[in-house]
């Protein structure tokens, strides 16, 4: 934005870079020590990612195919289609190496760090999927890697902690606050400002300061690029709706990006409704992570975006049964698309997500991540309540649920969910 445009939209600021703004959201709200690193990254993003300098994108595409397993299929979900009397298609990001869409971004950024001459990568992680993907990419590209993970998440996503360690990454538990994704991001930012000159911070979603939201979206956009093509080939037309879960919003933006100009395609971002949409201002706790649905504008982790915050502007602790959605912020571009009315935010609570987890597992033979289960929870609620999502719906299967089995068994039992298989016979004699 040029100097003359200064202050055009109230809080819009006098930045000199042209991009990094999505409507009133975005920007670079970071400590000064990080600004030169962001400028360096902007430059690298433009040259290597946008302009394919030194064949960066060619190498990325080769590696995401040969190492990552792309392209992923778009497959018809036969029993769900029958259940809902519609054509339900699944975009299978759970089949990407590592078991989630996260590798699309992690591989891109670790490779970029190499091109930039950085010696080390660091990452935050919530569910552990991004940490795992970064650890894999770092091992693959021979880069030292350290991951920061909130203590609560270390405890509820243990399989991923083991996977990161086994791939050779250091895992640093973060003992601040509630010990989830918010604290992990803050701590990784701090570590980045200590070591910024030789370290790249591989941020795990479309959040943070510019250029991260745009760059992570570009690495994830392969999801909708493929899905759009596949839909045309297999269905002869575009789908009527795309449904995707949203934490920070990277699988969401990835699944939506190439459909955004297609006005006939409705886009649904499914947030974690947690245990309730009510907020406890006094305790500073929102028992959900429904940022797009209930939050309001503010500044967190380097960006102006939509947040869960109290009336003073203190950030509230979020909650979700799914670690990867358990975050008080959301990507600025997604916040903007919601403001514009292009994306519809909806919520699904913990219990409905667990039911959807079991439904997809038994109906389709696909065990989804708890994050992903929220997308299927919405699909179910929409069809049950008679809401018309259209004739063909694509659901983004952002990841697989192996990491969640312990949580799912425990939470299922706690709720006495009838739809779930009985696991009690396995309990005596030392666990599963």
């Amino acid at each position, binding site marked *: 934005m040029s100097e003359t445009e*200064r*202050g055009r939209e*109230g*809080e819009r*600021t*006098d*930045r*000199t*870079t042209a991009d990094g703004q999505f409507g009133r959201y975005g*920007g*670079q*709200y*970071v*400590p*000064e*020590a990080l*600004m*030169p*690193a962001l*400028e360096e990254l902007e430059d690298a993003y433009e040259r290597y990612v946008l302009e394919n300098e030194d064949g960066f994108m060619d190498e990325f595409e080769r590696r995401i195919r040969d190492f990552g397993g792309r392209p992923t299929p778009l497959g018809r979900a036969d029993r769900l289609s029958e259940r809902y009397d519609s054509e339900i298609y699944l975009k299978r990001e759970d089949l990407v190496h590592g078991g989630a869409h996260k590798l699309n971004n992690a591989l891109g950024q670790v490779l970029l760090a190499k091109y930039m001459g950085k010696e080390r990568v660091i990452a935050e992680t919530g569910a552990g999927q991004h940490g795992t993907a970064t650890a894999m990419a770092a091992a693959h590209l021979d880069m030292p890697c350290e991951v920061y993970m909130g203590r609560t998440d270390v405890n509820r996503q243990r399989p991923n902690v083991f996977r990161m360690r086994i791939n050779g990454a250091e895992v640093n538990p973060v003992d*601040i*606050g509630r010990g989830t994704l*918010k604290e992990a991001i*803050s701590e990784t*930012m*701090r570590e980045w*400002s*200590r*070591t*910024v*000159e030789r370290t790249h911070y591989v941020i795990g979603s479309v959040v943070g300061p510019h250029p991260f939201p745009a760059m992570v979206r570009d690495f994830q956009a392969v999801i909708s690029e493929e899905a759009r093509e596949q839909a045309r080939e297999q269905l002869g037309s575009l789908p009527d709706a795309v449904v995707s879960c949203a934490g920070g919003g990277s699988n969401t933006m990835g699944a939506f990006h190439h459909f955004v100009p297609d006005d006939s395609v409705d886009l649904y971002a499914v947030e974690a409704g947690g245990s309730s949409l009510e907020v406890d201002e006094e305790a*500073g706790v929102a028992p959900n992570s429904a940022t797009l649905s209930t939050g309001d504008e*503010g*500044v*967190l*982790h*380097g960006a102006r975006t939509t*947040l869960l*915050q109290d*009336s*003073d*502007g*203190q*950030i509230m602790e979020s909650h979700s049964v799914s670690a990867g959605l358990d975050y008080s912020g959301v990507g600025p571009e997604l916040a903007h698309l919601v403001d514009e009315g292009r994306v519809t935010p909806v919520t699904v609570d913990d219990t409905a997500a667990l039911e959807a987890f079991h439904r997809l597992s038994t109906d389709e033979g696909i065990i989804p991540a708890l994050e992903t289960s929220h997308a299927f929870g919405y699909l179910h609620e929409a069809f049950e309540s008679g809401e018309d999502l259209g004739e063909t719906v694509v659901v983004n299967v952002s990841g697989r649920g192996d990491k969640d089995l312990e949580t799912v068994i425990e939470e299922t039992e706690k709720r006495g969910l009838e739809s779930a298989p009985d696991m009690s016979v396995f309990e005596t004699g030392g666990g599963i």
Partner: protein
Amino acid sequence: MGDDAADAAGASGSADSRTGTDATATAFDGGGAFVPYLAVGDPTYEASLEYVEALARGGADLIELGLPFSEPMAEGPTIQGAVTRALEAGMTPDRFFEFVSELDVDVPLVCMTYYNLIYQYGSSDGPRSFVERAAEVGLEGFVVPDLPAEEAGPLREACDEFGLDLIFIVAPTTRGDRLERMMERVSGYVYVQARLGATGAREDVSDQTGESLERLADWEIPKAVGFGIKTGEHAERIAAAGADGIIVGSALVDIVAEGHEDDRPVEETADRLAEKARELKAGATRGAESLPEPEHP
């Protein structure tokens, strides 16, 4: 600052008001200024009043008052601890302003906080309400660690309107264009970050400090160095390297934290803070005295 730069700043319309409050810049007159930081409300509102007054007694020339934010992205574990204690004890922006009104000290006070609290305050869309209230209670300026010069337009405007200072942090990584952009927007003093990383008291004093001071040598605005200063001897070395002042946070917060953990009487902790303040002020003064007389242009 060179004439060209001064003209450029004038053209951008903020030059006149950038000299708005003289109080902060004057606090550095003669060099060797001691600028302590404490998180307000740590561990309680009342104790915190005593502590800040103790720092003034111990020789503070200007005080940075931290308004606690739930996500202190630039702070190390020491100040994070202070922020958590203060928030748990009920500190809010309104309580903070009350605190500043009630405080009985006669040195300039600067508010250090994160942008979201400034942005959300009051009814205005943007930082204006916060700045207006800050001016009312007698604050002289702001340090906002997550607000680089590029994003500071609206806050700079509000500061100009109410005659308050906006202090920027110069990091060891800040060079070239960025320095110039900052020079156009800064007022009061610059906060020279002595080393990379989050805040926290350290054993050594970084070489990065000397380099940073050199880069800023021709800025007329006072330079205060912070991040990691812990003892009178550190203070002396940094003042002797050409800093107009030293900023100390974590080493003081440590004393508050200890007092809290060991359940010491508030007066005892206050005395210890005053004593530490005297040590740091004396060091800074010695350092400043070792410098050759400045030439005045």
